[in-house]
């Protein structure tokens, strides 16, 4: 027998046992391949999902206002629990939840129940070590607001499923939410995961920058809170806007709620802060000259028989400046007679009243501006001093910002993109705007807004005090008021427009006594924060030593 034959026989004998194995293998691999593959996939393969964190919300300087952090929740599969009481007793020290509460949740209807949410990594490890049957752990993304309640009215709220429920979290929900990453995994016999591949890359959303300034927001909230302690008003809000760009720097409300932003959603009767609209219409159309005098009728004037307008103080002859400085209803009602309904209506619309501003927050109100056909003699007179219409705080601050920047209505912006502000329209001639601004400075210097003065700085603004409608009688209340002040500073080169609105202050209720001091308190802090040079020369000189005053 030659060597080749012997090797062939030996090899055949060695390979003989492998033949049935090979045939079986072929049968499993070829004939039953798809059935076995799907069975194995069901038992060993799985897809792990890694939830993409919701994007950060930042302030204009990139400081974090809202961020998502990984967290865990644990749940019970009631079908796997035989004794709810024993289950509760065993889990209570691990979860640090009363055993009775765990047992109660385990007995409730349905197969599934959450036992604890917002667990940290240490708690999860302890739970894993306890190896309690019937307990599952689900990773979630917890939304955290590192500054506490700061700007919560603007930021809003996120639900347990990671969807925005209110505020910017709701409006920007699509941009803030990412898509989960998915991984294909295998599980070995001991249940350990083996990484296979990335099934889906997901999407990590980019952070969103708001125009809010965290420090300005804090100062605004502090000023409002201090005001609340002093005047114990029912509710109040304060907004700060950059008049040059329309960017909203702060939106504060008191009491704070993440579910509601009254600065966008509330409309109110503005009272005397609306007199500026009448005055601007009159000056812009050249209908009133600076030295034109209007009779104050000693505090009471019959517009039509049976309908009288009153002033809080009796006045004689007044110029337009004095009408605004003394906040005379009769005076401005006489001015609006010259203006007429169509010009008044046109100016109101030009300043943005009666339409939504389009700010990126939910539930914005357009306010209510009477249609031109409803502006009768009495209606027009009432509107001239801010009654019989409703405005949103954003509209008011936008209108005053337009005066502050020299006459351009800017779109109020909440999303920061580093671009110059969007201009909406011109509101009047440069000369008219300048004249009204000078009058508003006079209101602070000599008029009703003395409380808004800031030593060393020029301030322009207007007070407002309006009676509220009594919800029971549907008539104007004699005890409930809306006190407000809106102004800008420093008046020589305005950097901030500030609106303060207080509902139902107790004790003193005039805007000049309640809202204006809040404006001044905030203004002082803003000026110090930005180290703005004083723009009132007399005060600057007073600061210098005598030898240097030349």
């Amino acid at each position, binding site marked *: 027998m030659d060597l*080749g*034959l012997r*090797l*062939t026989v030996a*090899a055949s004998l060695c390979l003989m046992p492998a033949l049935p194995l090979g045939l079986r293998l072929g049968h499993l691999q070829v004939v039953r391949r798809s059935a076995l593959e799907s069975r194995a996939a069901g038992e060993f393969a799985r897809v792990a999902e*890694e939830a993409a*964190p919701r994007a950060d919300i930042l302030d204009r300087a990139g*400081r*974090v206002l809202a*961020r*998502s*952090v*990984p967290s865990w929740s644990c749940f019970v599969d009631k079908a796997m629990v035989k004794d709810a009481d024993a289950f509760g007793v065993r889990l209570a020290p691990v979860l640090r939840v009363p055993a009775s509460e765990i047992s109660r949740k385990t007995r409730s209807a349905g197969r599934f129940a959450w036992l604890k949410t917002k667990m*940290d*990594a240490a708690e999860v490890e302890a739970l894993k070590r306890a190896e309690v049957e019937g307990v599952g752990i689900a990773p979630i993304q917890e939304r*955290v607001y*590192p*500054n*506490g309640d*700061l700007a919560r009215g603007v930021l809003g709220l996120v639900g347990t499923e990671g969807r925005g429920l209110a505020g910017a979290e709701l409006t920007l929900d699509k941009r803030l939410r990412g898509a989960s990453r998915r*991984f294909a*995994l*295998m599980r070995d016999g001991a249940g*350990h*995961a*083996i*990484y*296979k591949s990335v099934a889906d890359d997901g999407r990590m959303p980019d952070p969103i920058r708001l125009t809010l300034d*965290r*420090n300005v927001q*804090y*100062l605004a909230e*502090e000023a409002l809170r201090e005001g609340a302690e002093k005047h114990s008003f029912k509710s109040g809000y304060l907004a700060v806007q950059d008049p040059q760009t329309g960017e909203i720097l702060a939106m504060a409300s008191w009491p704070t709620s993440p579910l509601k932003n009254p600065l966008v959603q509330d409309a109110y009767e503005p009272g005397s802060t609306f007199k500026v609209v009448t005055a601007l219409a009159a000056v812009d159309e050249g209908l009133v000259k600076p030295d034109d005098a209007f009779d104050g009728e000693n505090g009471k004037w019959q517009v039509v028989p049976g309908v009288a307008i009153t002033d809080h103080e009796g006045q004689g002859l007044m110029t337009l400046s004095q009408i605004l400085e003394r906040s005379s209803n009769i005076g401005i009602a006489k001015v609006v007679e010259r203006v007429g309904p169509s010009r008044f209506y046109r100016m109101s619309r030009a300043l943005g009243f009666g339409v939504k501003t389009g700010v990126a927050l939910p539930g914005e109100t357009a306010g209510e501006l009477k249609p031109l056909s409803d502006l009768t003699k009495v209606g027009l007179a009432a509107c001239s001093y801010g009654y019989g219409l409703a405005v949103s705080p954003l509209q008011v601050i936008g209108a005053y910002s337009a005066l502050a920047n020299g006459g351009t209505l800017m779109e109020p912006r909440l999303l920061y993109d580093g671009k110059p502000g969007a201009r909406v329209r011109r509101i009047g001639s440069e000369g008219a705007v300048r004249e009204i601004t000078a009058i508003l400075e006079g209101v602070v210097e000599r008029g009703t807004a003395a409380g808004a003065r*800031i*030593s*060393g*700085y020029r301030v322009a603004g207007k007070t407002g005090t309006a009676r509220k409608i009594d919800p029971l009688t549907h008539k104007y209340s004699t005890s409930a008021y809306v006190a407000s002040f809106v102004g800008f500073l420093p008046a020589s080169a305005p950097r901030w427009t500030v609106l303060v609105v207080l509902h139902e202050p107790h004790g003193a209720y005039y805007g000049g006594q309640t809202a204006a001091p809040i404006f001044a308190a905030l203004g*002082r*802090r803003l*000026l*110090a924060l930005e*180290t*703005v*040079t*004083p723009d009132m020369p007399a*005060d600057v000189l007073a*600061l210098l030593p005598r030898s240097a005053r030349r």
Partner: protein
Amino acid sequence: MEFGPGAATRLAGAGTLVLFLCWQHVEATRLGYQVETARKTARQKGSRVATLRVELEERLSPAEVSARAQRLGLVPVEPDALRRLEVRPAASGVMGRWWARRLRPLVAASRS
């Protein structure tokens, strides 16, 4: 069929290939375990970093800073208590002009 040295070599080659494929499979599984462990570690570390960042932001929040300042006895500054000092480099003489040229950009930067 004759089983010569050539066939033996081919069989050995095939065996080596099978062994290589087995080794590759084992190695892929081992790496799969490692990747999964690394992924878990990365997730834990990422979670810790996120928590620490939030803690940092909480410490830097204006309310927290204000509370700490109050504990130290500090009070909010009034705007008229601030003095803005401007540096105007003297430009007289050769050295003065030389220094002025060098200081001008710094002064401009401090103003901005």
